[in-house]
C-alpha cells in the first residue's frame, strides 16, 4: 500500500493567535467515536459548555439527535475535585436510560486540575455495587492536545484497551479500525466490500450503523446502533486487523501486539491505486476472485477519470482538512491531475492562513466553516470534513472505494466544469 504525504506549502504556524480555526476539540472527536458503539453515551468530564458546544456541532452535521452528557463541573467542584460529579453523572445516566457503555472523556479543565478519572470509576463501582459491571471506557481527551482526530483515536484506543482481549482466532472475522474522517457511508462501503469477500467485518467504531440517517421506531437517548460491547470484546481475535488512517496506526499496533493479530495499515482509500491495492489484498487473503460488481465499478471509475480529466488538469486546489482526510484527498487530486496549492491540517494553520494562500485557486476543499471565506474570494468550495452544516446527507456520504471515487470525480468534475464554462480559460492561461 502506498502512502502519499501531503505536499505542504504552508507558512510556519502562527504562534499566538488562531483566526477562524478549523480545529475541533479532542473531546468532540472522542464523543464521535463513542457514538459508533451500540447503546453508548459519551460523558464529558468538564463544565457543561464543552458538552453543549460539541453537541450543537454534531447535531448540525449529522442532523440527528446526539446523545452526549456532562459531569457539569462548577466553581465548587473545580476547587474540590470532580469525583463526586463523575459518580453522580454516571449513576444518573444509568438510572435514566441504562446505557450499554459510558465513555468518560476528560476535558482541558479536568485534566488541568488533575482529576483522577480511573480512580473515580473505581470509587463509583465501590459505592454503587449495581454498577460494578457497567462497561465504562475512560478517555483522556484534553483540549490542549491535538484535535478531533486525536481525540477520536484516544477513544478508539481506550475501547480496545478496555474490552478487546486475546483468544483463539475467529475464522473469517476481520477487524477494521476506522478513523475519524470516515463518514457513516464510508463505513457501510467498507462492510459491503469485506462481506463481498466472505468476511464478517467488525468496525471500530461503527458509525455506519448509528449515524447513517435512518428513522427508527422509537427515539432513544443512547447511540442507536454501532458495534456492541460484546463484539468489542472479540475484535482482538480476528484473522486480520486493518487500520485505515495514520491517526489510528499507534492504537492499531498496540492491539495487534497485545492480541497477537496480524496487522495491515492503509493510510487512505480515496485514490484508485489505494483502492486497487486494498481489493487485491482482500482477494489474495480470501482466495476469492474480485466480485463482478467491483470489476464493473472499477471500469466506471476509469471511464469517469477519462471524462473528468479535462477539468481537473492543472487546477490549483488549496485544502484544509484533518490529517487522514487530507492525505486521501491529496492523493485523489494529484491522481486526477490537479495541483495541490496548499495543504493545511488544523495543527499547521487556520482558515485565515488558507485565505492568504488561495490566490488564483480554482477550488477550495474544506468544511462548511470555510464557506464565508470561499464566498469572499469567489472560489467554489467543495465541502469535506467536519462540520458540514450547510449541506444535507452527511450520514450517507461515501468518499472511499470505487463508489467514493466515482462520486467525488463526478461532483468535483461538475464544479470545475461549471467554472470552466463560466470563465473560459485563455490559451496558455
Amino acid at each position, binding site marked *: 500500500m502506498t502512502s502519499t504525504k501531503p505536499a505542504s506549502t504552508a507558512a510556519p504556524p502562527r*504562534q499566538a493567535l*488562531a483566526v477562524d480555526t478549523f*480545529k475541533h*476539540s479532542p473531546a468532540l472527536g472522542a464523543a464521535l467515536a463513542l457514538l459508533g458503539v451500540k447503546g453508548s453515551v459519551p*460523558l464529558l468530564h468538564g463544565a457543561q*459548555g464543552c458538552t453543549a458546544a460539541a453537541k450543537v456541532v454534531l447535531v448540525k452535521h449529522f442532523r440527528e439527535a446526539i446523545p452526549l452528557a456532562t459531569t457539569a463541573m462548577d466553581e465548587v467542584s473545580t476547587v474540590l475535585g470532580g469525583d463526586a460529579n463523575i459518580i453522580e*453523572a454516571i449513576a444518573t445516566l444509568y438510572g435514566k436510560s441504562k446505557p450499554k457503555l459510558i465513555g468518560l472523556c476528560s476535558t*482541558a479543565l479536568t485534566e488541568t486540575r488533575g482529576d483522577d478519572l480511573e480512580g473515580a470509576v473505581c470509587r463509583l463501582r465501590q459505592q454503587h455495587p449495581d454498577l460494578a459491571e457497567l462497561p465504562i471506557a475512560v478517555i483522556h481527551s484534553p483540549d490542549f492536545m491535538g484535535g478531533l482526530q486525536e481525540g477520536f483515536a484516544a477513544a478508539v484506543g481506550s475501547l480496545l484497551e478496555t474490552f478487546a482481549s486475546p483468544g483463539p482466532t475467529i475464522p473469517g472475522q476481520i477487524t477494521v479500525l476506522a478513523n475519524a474522517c470516515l463518514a457513516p457511508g464510508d463505513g457501510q462501503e467498507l462492510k459491503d466490500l469485506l462481506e463481498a469477500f466472505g468476511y464478517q467485518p467488525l468496525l471500530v467504531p461503527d458509525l455506519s450503523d448509528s449515524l447513517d440517517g435512518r428513522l427508527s421506531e422509537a427515539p432513544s*437517548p443512547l447511540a442507536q446502533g454501532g458495534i456492541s460491547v460484546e463484539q468489542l470484546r472479540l475484535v482482538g481475535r480476528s484473522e486480520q486487523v486493518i487500520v485505515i488512517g495514520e491517526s489510528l496506526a499507534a492504537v492499531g499496533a498496540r492491539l495487534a501486539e497485545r492480541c497477537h493479530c496480524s496487522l495491515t495499515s492503509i493510510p487512505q482509500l480515496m485514490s484508485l491505486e489505494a483502492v486497487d491495492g486494498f481489493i487485491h489484498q482482500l482477494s489474495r487473503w480470501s482466495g476469492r476472485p474480485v466480485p463482478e460488481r467491483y470489476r464493473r465499478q472499477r471500469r466506471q471509475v476509469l471511464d469517469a477519470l477519462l471524462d473528468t480529466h479535462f477539468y481537473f488538469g492543472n487546477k490549483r486546489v488549496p485544502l484544509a482538512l484533518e490529517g487522514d482526510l487530507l492525505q486521501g484527498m491529496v492523493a485523489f487530486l494529484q491522481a486526477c491531475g490537479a495541483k495541490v496549492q496548499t495543504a493545511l491540517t488544523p495543527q499547521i494553520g487556520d482558515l485565515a492562513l488558507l485565505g492568504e494562500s488561495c490566490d488564483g485557486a480554482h477550488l477550495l476543499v474544506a468544511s462548511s466553516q470555510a464557506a464565508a471565506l470561499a464566498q469572499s474570494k469567489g472560489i467554489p468550495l467543495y465541502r469535506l470534513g467536519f462540520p458540514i452544516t450547510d449541506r444535507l446527507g452527511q450520514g450517507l456520504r461515501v468518499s472511499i472505494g470505487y463508489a467514493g471515487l466515482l462520486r467525488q470525480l463526478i461532483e468535483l468534475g461538475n464544479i470545475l466544469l461549471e467554472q470552466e464554462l463560466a470563465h473560459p480559460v485563455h490559451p496558455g492561461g
Partner: protein
Amino acid sequence: MVHAPTNRELLTEPACSHNPAAKGGSAKKGCAQKAKPGDAQGGCAFDGALITLVPITDVAHLVHGPIACGGHSWGTRGSLSSGPQHYRHGFTTDLNEHDIIFGAETKLRQAIEAIARDHRPKAIFVYATCVTALIGEDLDSVCKQAAQALALPVIPVHSAGFRGSKNFGNRLGGQALLDHVIGTSQAPRQAGPSINIIGEYNIAGEVWAVEPLLEALGIRVQARITGDGRYEAIAAAHQADLNVVICSKALLNVARTMEERYGIPFIEASFYGSANVSQCLRQIVDHLVDSKLADLSLIDRSEALIATHTALMGSQLEPYRQRLAGKRIVLYTGGVKSWSIIAAAADLGMKVVATSIKKSTADDKARIEELLGPDGVLIEKGGAAEILDVIARTGADMLIAGGRNQYTALKARIPFLDINQERHHAYAGYEGIVALAREIDEAMHSPVWEQVRRPAPWEQEP
C-alpha cells in the same frame, strides 16, 4: 480598574424577578440553579457571554482558552450585521499544554496585538474560559496594558464556563458592557428623542423588522445592545432617553444600572405578537410624551401607524388563520420568550397547550398559567422524553422549541419549528408574525407527515 463582579453580586440582581429577595422575599438561589451532573443540558457561562456580546459587529471577540471554547461556535451565531463583519471571525489563543503549564499571558498580549494590527476592530473583547480562570491568568491587567499600548479599548470578560449557566453568562456579558463600555463615549449627543434596544440579538434580522416603525415616528435608536450593535454607539448608550429591554431578564441588570447611574428609565417589552409590538410602541411613545421629549401629536401618529400595520397584518394572516385555527402547540423555550410566543400564537388562532417554565420566574409562571387556561400543562424539567410525553398527552400538533430539540420532534414524526438562536427566519414585528404563520403552516401541513407515519404496506397486513 473595575473588579470582576463576583457570582454573588450578579446572582442577586435586584431588578430581576427571578430573585425573590428583590421583592422582600427570602433570599434564594436566583440564577444559581446548579447544573446536575449527567442531566444538565445547556451551554456554559462563557457561551452565554458570547451570545450577548458577539452580536457587536465591529469588534473582535478573542477567546482566551483551549480549542473547545474557541473552536466550535465561531461564525455560527444567527445575529446579522448591516455592515461590519469582524464579529464573524473566530479569534482564539488556542492554548496548548505548554501554555497551560507556563502561563499564557504573553501569548494573549501577542494575540491582542496581532488582531489590532491585522484587523483594526473598534475594540477587542477578551473572554476568559475555564482553564484560564483555573490557572489564574490576569486578564484585567493584560487588557489594561494592551489598551494603553494600542490606544484601543480591550475589554476583559470574566466568563469562565464553570461559573454558571448560559443565562448567567448573558448577565456577565451585560456586566462587561456596564463596567467597560457604556458611558465611555465623549461623542456629542445627537438631537431628537432616542432609545436603546437591550437584549435583542437581531437573529435573522429581527431588529430590522422593528426599527422602521420607530424611524417612522422619528424615534432614533441610539444603541442596539447588542444585535447589529456598534461599539461607539454602545459606548454612548448613556445619552439615550429610554431603555427598552426586549424579552430579557438576563440583561435587566444593564437597564437597572443605567437607571441608577444615568437616570435613564426602562421598560420591558416584546417584539413578538401584534399586541406586544403595539404595546411596546405605545409604551415608548407615552414615555417620550410624558417626559416632554416629544409633543402630543406623536400619540396620534403612532396610533395611525399601529392601525395601518395591524390592518395589513390582519389581511395577510387571514389565509393562515383559517388553516391554523384551533391547532395545538407545545412550546419549549426559555423564560420570557414563552409568553411572547403564546401571544403570537393567539394572533394565529392557535392554542399553546403546554410550555416550559424551567427558566421562568414566579411572576412569569402566574402569567403563563393565566394565558394557558386551566388545562394548560407546565413543563417543569426538560429532556426529550418529557417533551414527547407532554406532546402525546396533550395531543399537540406541533413542537415549537430551540434547535436542540429539533430531532426530538422529527424522530417522533412530529412537526417542529425552531424558535431560538440559529434559525433563518425573523419573527419579530408585524411582518414577523406573518412569517411565523407561513413557517408554522408549512411545517404543519407538509405532505411528508402522512408518509412518514404510514407503515410500509407489508407491515399493515394482519
